[in-house]
């Protein structure tokens, strides 16, 4: 995609956000991160999550679904902005800084990981992918 003035602006904001460091995850988000860390550990995977890996995962085109190639297809390039479903309904921003109630209900988070990972990747996400994703959103 060509850089529009808007995405350039968004990238600028990203840089600023990165410079000021990740916004602290609240206790509810931390509980969910801990849950995925435990799952990752049990699966023998690294349990230290990385917002940078989460960001790469968020933007990657997985080449499974034509309509929904990436997470950012619905959640937009800048997760602090509202997204849009394929059917046209607005989605509240995913960034915890924009919507502090994000990633606070494990059942809800699991439901959407199950759905969206299957839609975009054609498979379930690993605990590490989920942890990185939440870490990225908590840093925004």
């Amino acid at each position, binding site marked *: 995609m060509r850089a529009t003035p808007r995405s350039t602006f968004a990238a600028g904001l990203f840089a600023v956000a990165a410079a000021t460091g990740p916004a602290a995850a609240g206790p509810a988000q931390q509980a969910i991160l801990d849950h995925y860390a435990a799952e990752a550990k049990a699966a023998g995977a690294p349990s230290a999550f990385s917002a940078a890996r989460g960001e790469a995962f968020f933007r990657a085109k997985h080449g499974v*679904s034509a*309509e*929904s190639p990436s997470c950012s297809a619905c959640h937009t390039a800048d997760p602090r902005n509202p997204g*849009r*479903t*394929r*059917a*046209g*309904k607005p989605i509240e921003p995913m960034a915890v800084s924009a919507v502090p109630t994000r990633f606070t209900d494990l059942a809800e988070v699991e*439901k959407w990981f*199950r*759905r*969206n990972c*299957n*839609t975009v990747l054609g498979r379930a996400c690993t605990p590490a992918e989920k942890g990185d994703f939440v870490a990225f959103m908590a840093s925004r």
Partner: protein
Amino acid sequence: MRPQPTPSPAPFAARPVPTGDPGGHDRGAATDAAINGQPARTTIAVWDPFVRIFHWMLATAVAAALTTGLLLPATWTRLHIAAGTLAAALVAARIVWGFLGPHFARFATFVGGPATVLRYTRELIGRRAGRHLGHNPLGGAMIVALLALLIAITATGTAALGGVLKAGPLAFATSYAAGSAAREIHGLLAYALLALIALHVAGVLFESRRTREDLVGAMIHGRKRGMPGAGSARSAQARPVLAAGIVAAILAGSTLVSAALSQRPAAGVPTAPLDPAYAEECGACHIPYHPSLAPAAVWTALMNGLSDHFGEDASLDPATTRAMRDYLVANAAEAYDTRAANVFRRRAADDPLRLTATPFWRRRHAEIPAAVFASPPVGGEGNCAACHADAATGRFAPAAITIPKETTS
């Protein structure tokens, strides 16, 4: 006011009216002689003010009803109903005036039996027909036909409104099937009305030429060329106060009855709000579609395939899936009788799960440009609520339709 022939008919009294013609009637050649003689220059008030106001208001109301009904989109339905209601009220008033109005307004003056109409038609063909101060027998028959047709159109329109749109005084008792049959007839009668109006106008123009009298003008100023025999002696006395009283009573009575009946719950219309759990789960990615918009078989198929839901995984845990399926099946199209519940039962063979693929949906939205659906305030064909303010209720009333304007940003 007494719309009596003026001035005094005395100058014509000498000449008797030809046989048994209540409308005033003379023979062609003699007429012209009389006209060219000085007394015939006088004009006579024939159409009283009510008849004239009635005529032009009815013409306006019928033109509005025909335009909104036959040419304009469904969003004009409210104006269509208003125009039809006005026409019905005017017809009721005219019928009362036909019994209590002055001489030329009365049915007794211009409604003849088939024999009279036939005789007059034969005279017309034989170029022997005379001129009539009021309506000639064919004109009288036309008026009866127009009034009768308007009554039938009002009745079928009210039944269609009740059965199809589930509104108005008959909504509580009219099924969709009965309403849509009434709607078919309503449409056919509208074309019959168009044909009669064309005949009526042609008749007026023909008669204006034939009798060299501006009949359109006469319906405006009310006066016609005087002619012998139009005496006041046999003129009926108008009873305007009594007529106004009766008309007011009829209109007030029917308004009250109609309002009372309209208050009754409409047959087969969903009243319960959407189940909150359903609205939450099935409203996450798009508007929660009202269960009445699809038959039970479609909901069952859709709920059994949530993990590949139009290319997306929309799966739910088994307990929630069961709860949602039970709710949808219990409230499916079969449980209701709204227009939407009826028309969306017919599904596209190749794409049965999609509401927007149904033949009705495609037909009724064919004239909306794709760009409107793609525009940000709409965001897709499936976003019914962007244009249908009552989408969540399952009603989809024409009065609730507005296509949102794209705001420039």
